[in-house]
């Protein structure tokens, strides 16, 4: 339960019975393509809009997770989901398809870990036997809402990031086989006054640093406890900044265990500038790549710190700065 100021320790250690990752065409050419359960060659997924395509991604991720766990959807007590589209339509429309009790979340790109931590808390408290936590993002739909039309020829700066087309879902249960969620740290909103939507890494890095510090302070742990500490979608620019900020605050995380999902997901030759972003980024890397490594025994204890930028297209047009958040979840095998 509550430990320190903002961390939750789960004594019963909820189990991730199954997790799934679904991706699009760009992800299928990425560095982690093998870790996806389903990869689509068509960015539209045969739908007539990007928004419907995103919903389909999320639906597939949920179905795959249920299938892998061998659980019927009727057994799900709560479905937790969030995404980037206005009024989280991908999540709510998927909840309509699933027809299970549902709580919508909004934590921007931190939704994956927001869902996983709240889901674990629900299992821990006995409010649910099975929780499905999912999230999604779609490159076309996100660009359309937050930036320019996808075919518009504006040159992007080297700090820009590429929104992942993908969805991830995790099925949490009270008991069973699989990686276990041991604790979580809920982040504060941090705003250092960065207002450039093409430099999200620099905007979100201080939020990640704040949550990582809080986690180790609350848990009275040393970073060496983990085999891997991964931030959500800081990209190259934000990752370097976060490492330097942590060092400045006296926390030296060895380089070989400190990484970022936004750097891992794509390969070097893909034109993604600073790296990847979007809810789907930390979700697919955690639920696809990390889960496999945990199950295979390559990793034993990991800390995923999903980062989110809580701005809207309206807020940055009105010259507001970008408030950011990060939630950390510790997963152990």
């Amino acid at each position, binding site marked *: 339960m509550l430990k320190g100021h903002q961390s939750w320790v789960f004594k019963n250690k909820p189990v991730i019975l199954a997790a799934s990752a679904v991706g699009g065409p760009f992800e299928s050419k990425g560095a982690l393509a093998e870790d996806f359960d389903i990869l689509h060659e068509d960015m539209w997924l045969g739908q*007539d*809009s*990007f*928004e419907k395509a995103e919903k389909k991604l999320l639906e597939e991720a949920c179905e795959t997770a249920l299938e892998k766990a061998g659980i019927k959807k009727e057994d799900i007590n709560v479905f937790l989901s969030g995404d980037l589209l206005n009024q989280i339509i991908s999540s709510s429309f998927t909840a309509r398809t699933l027809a299970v009790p549902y709580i919508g979340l909004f934590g921007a790109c931190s939704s994956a870990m927001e869902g996983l931590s709240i889901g674990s808390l629900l299992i821990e408290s006995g409010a649910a036997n099975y929780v499905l936590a999912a999230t999604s993002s779609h490159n076309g739909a996100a660009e*359309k809402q937050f930036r*320019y*039309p*996808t*075919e*518009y*020829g*504006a*040159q*992007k*700066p*080297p*700090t820009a990031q590429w929104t992942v087309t993908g969805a991830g879902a995790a099925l949490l249960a009270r008991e069973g086989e699989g990686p276990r969620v041991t604790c979580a740290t809920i982040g504060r909103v941090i*705003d*250092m*006054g*960065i207002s450039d939507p093409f*430099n999200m890494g*620099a905007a979100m*890095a*201080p939020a990640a640093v704040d949550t990582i510090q809080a986690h180790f302070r609350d848990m009275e742990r040393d970073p060496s406890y983990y085999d891997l500490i991964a931030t959500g979608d800081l990209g190259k*620019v934000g990752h*370097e*900044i976060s490492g*330097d900020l942590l060092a400045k605050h006296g926390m030296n995380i060895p380089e070989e265990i400190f990484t970022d999902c936004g750097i891992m997901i794509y390969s070097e030759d893909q*034109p993604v500038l*600073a790296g990847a972003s979007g809810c789907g980024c930390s979700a697919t890397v955690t639920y696809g790549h990390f889960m496999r490594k945990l199950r295979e025994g390559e990793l034993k204890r990991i800390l995923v710190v999903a980062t989110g930028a809580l701005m809207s297209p309206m807020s940055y047009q009105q*010259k507001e700065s970008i408030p950011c958040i990060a939630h950390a979840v510790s997963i152990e095998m």
Partner: protein
Amino acid sequence: MSNKKKKKFTPTQQQYQQYAKQREPKRPVFLNCVRAFLVGGFICTLGQGLQWIFMTYFGFDEVTAGNPTVAVLIIVSVLLTGLGVYDHIAQWAGAGTIIPVTGFANTMASAAIEHRSEGYVLGVGGNMFKISGPVITYGVFFAFVVSLVRIIIKELGGM
């Protein structure tokens, strides 16, 4: 950053902003200029070539050849946008593909394609000028201001 904007932020925030600024990979401004010059120049040369073709083979004069020339460039640009190629060229060429008439065609075509899913009226019709709208608004406004200035100077006996 203007002073008014700076005042909103605490010293720690300002410090971080400066720090983040230093950590930004710099835009390759010189290289971008060279690329813009080459691609922009190429498009203009293409236009010049087209104009020559229309004048030599189709009986247009120097003034009237402008219309079909621009039309051809716009059609090519819209086609490349629809085929999903234009944005890739633009990431390399930068201002070289934005400034000429092809860039304007791209802004309209890309917005129209993007919002096709919301229907022809609210989607395509309502969003087609989303990016090019400001260009038209301020283009018309400044044309009005300039012509006003011209008329005043003329009335005062100048020119």
